[in-house]
């Protein structure tokens, strides 16, 4: 089945130690998104790619970066994680920006 896959499901890292989360899709969608979701809150868009065009939200912290080396893969890099970055990170895709989004099951990031 076509889907959005996030690895790993759970990630533990140390305060200040860089971490990379990955997302892959078999839907061949143009758009890939990264959201941060904290407990009992709405998903918050960090950035998205339309094909190779990168769009960063104004309030996304500077230590969050993303790479999309090809259509299928997208990575979220957190350069120096702080305790406040502990959250669920959700990857999503859509064919076009106005279309329904397909989400992966997320990576839950814990910071020690």
């Amino acid at each position, binding site marked *: 089945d076509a889907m959005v896959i996030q690895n790993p499901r759970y990630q533990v890292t140390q305060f200040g130690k860089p971490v990379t989360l990955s997302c892959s899709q078999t839907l061949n969608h143009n758009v890939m998104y990264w959201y941060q979701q904290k407990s009992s809150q*709405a998903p918050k868009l960090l950035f*998205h790619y339309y094909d190779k065009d990168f769009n960063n939200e104004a309030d996304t912290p500077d230590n969050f970066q993303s790479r999309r080396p090809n259509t299928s893969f997208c990575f979220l890099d957190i350069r120096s994680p702080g305790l406040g970055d502990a959250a669920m990170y959700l990857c999503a895709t859509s064919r076009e*920006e106005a279309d329904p*989004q397909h989400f992966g*099951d997320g990576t839950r990031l814990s910071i020690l």
Partner: protein
Amino acid sequence: SQQGEEDPQALSIQEGENATMNCSYKTSINNLQWYRQNSGRGLVHLILIRSNEREKHSGRLRVTLDTSKKSSSLLITASRAADTASYFCATYNAGGTSYGKLTFGQGTILTVHP
């Protein structure tokens, strides 16, 4: 800034009852979407209603949109225990000269008791 506000924040009902969740938003939209999220999982798209549509159905789901009141409702009929989840409305605005984005409301936690 938060676009969608959902009401109620939490809803507890018995199996077989109907569940209604409401969403209000502030700015103009191109479409409004509803998503479900089971605990610890990703969001699942349920239904999309365009700004020129007033009502849409999908199985046991009925969505209405009133653009004059900037509000939408999601009705789940004959609820089941498996409907227990968080439900989010999300508004899409094409953004004019910049890119469009989907903005999520805070969600309604629905609990359906067997």
